[in-house]
């Protein structure tokens, strides 16, 4: 898109520590001034990376994960791409989050904190691209 500028990309691999690395990379590249936006980014990235490791790579290590951060006129966009097992449709989270059941809240949380969330299966093969958009707050 013409109205967005790539701030940076990193290649990570599924495995221990990948969620922490991804959170740190996203925050480091985005350089957000609004701490509330930064907290939402941190949580959403952590949930998506966790899902990729658990479900797309099914717990296997060393699966590549590309994290890209773009600056947009209205905020930032984070793209996270993997080459694991893709879902045919956008993942469905727990509908009623107040149920006392562990698990299943990751996507619900992502949708809660991101202004936009898209899941795009790779049309050419394995994996998917997940896109997060976080709009800047009015005070920034």
């Amino acid at each position, binding site marked *: 898109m013409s109205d967005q500028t790539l701030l940076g*990309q*990193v*290649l*990570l*691999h599924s495995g*221990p*520590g990948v*969620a*922490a*690395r991804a*959170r*740190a*990379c996203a*925050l*480091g*590249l985005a*350089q*957000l*001034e609004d*701490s509330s936006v*930064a*907290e939402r980014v*941190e*949580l959403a990235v*952590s*949930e998506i*990376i*966790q899902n990729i*490791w*658990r479900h797309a790579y099914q717990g296997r290590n*060393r*699966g*590549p994960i*590309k994290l890209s951060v773009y600056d947009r006129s209205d905020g930032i966009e984070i793209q996270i*791409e*993997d*080459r694991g097992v893709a879902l045919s449709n956008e993942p469905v989270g727990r509908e009623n*989050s*107040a149920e*006392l*059941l*562990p*698990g299943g*809240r*990751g996507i*619900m*949380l992502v949708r*809660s*904190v991101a202004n936009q969330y898209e899941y795009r299966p790779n049309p050419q093969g394995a*994996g998917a691209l997940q896109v997060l958009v976080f709009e800047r707050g009015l005070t920034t």
Partner: protein
Amino acid sequence: MIQASGVYDIDNYEAFRTELLAALKEQGRVRVDLSAVTFMDSSGLSCLVEALQVAQRDGRELILQNPSSKVTELLDLSALSALFTIEVVKVNAAAPAAGELGFDEPDVSVGEDWGGDLDLDDLSFDLDGDLNDWQIGEADAPAALHPMDGIEPDILSASKPEPQSSSPTESTSAVLPKSDVQRGDFPAPVTPVTATDRSSKNNLNLQESPAIDLSEGGPLEDYDDDPLNRL
């Protein structure tokens, strides 16, 4: 008391889960101090949810004490706050001495001249029968309750009280919803948890962070041909 601190994500939730479940096996009431938790995602949250499930099943009590702002926000986002017992207490509060409870004591003292000349001996009534059968007439009740005016034996009527439609304990047995913040052990005063300092988070320097290895982008055995590896 379980002291939780730092990050709870996919990397370390298992140890947290094990500690919570072990504590619930041994203790009837388990407090988890979450004031030092700097980050938690759904992995850590699932530990708390499972622990609450176990506690409810086994008749135990799980109390989340002083959740940090990150934990509080996560519970709110998940619509789970109402299910947990959340306790907010000032951790290092010194117990106040007697008479220093933080509010004005009632301005009443025994033997104080309260402006009346009523002699307690004048209030001795000769009432036959079971005291439980007696009640103050509704119309006269306000006067009867006043210490000065109109206290005469004839303001009492000997009518049987109407059967109570509800148990007298009902009004005192109300249970606060779990979402209500519950006070800690008396007499520690309740104070809101100080918001964590978020200012430093946005200043992450990738070069200075030992947790980030940007050199791992080399070719992989399983993914050599993948364009994703060529940034």
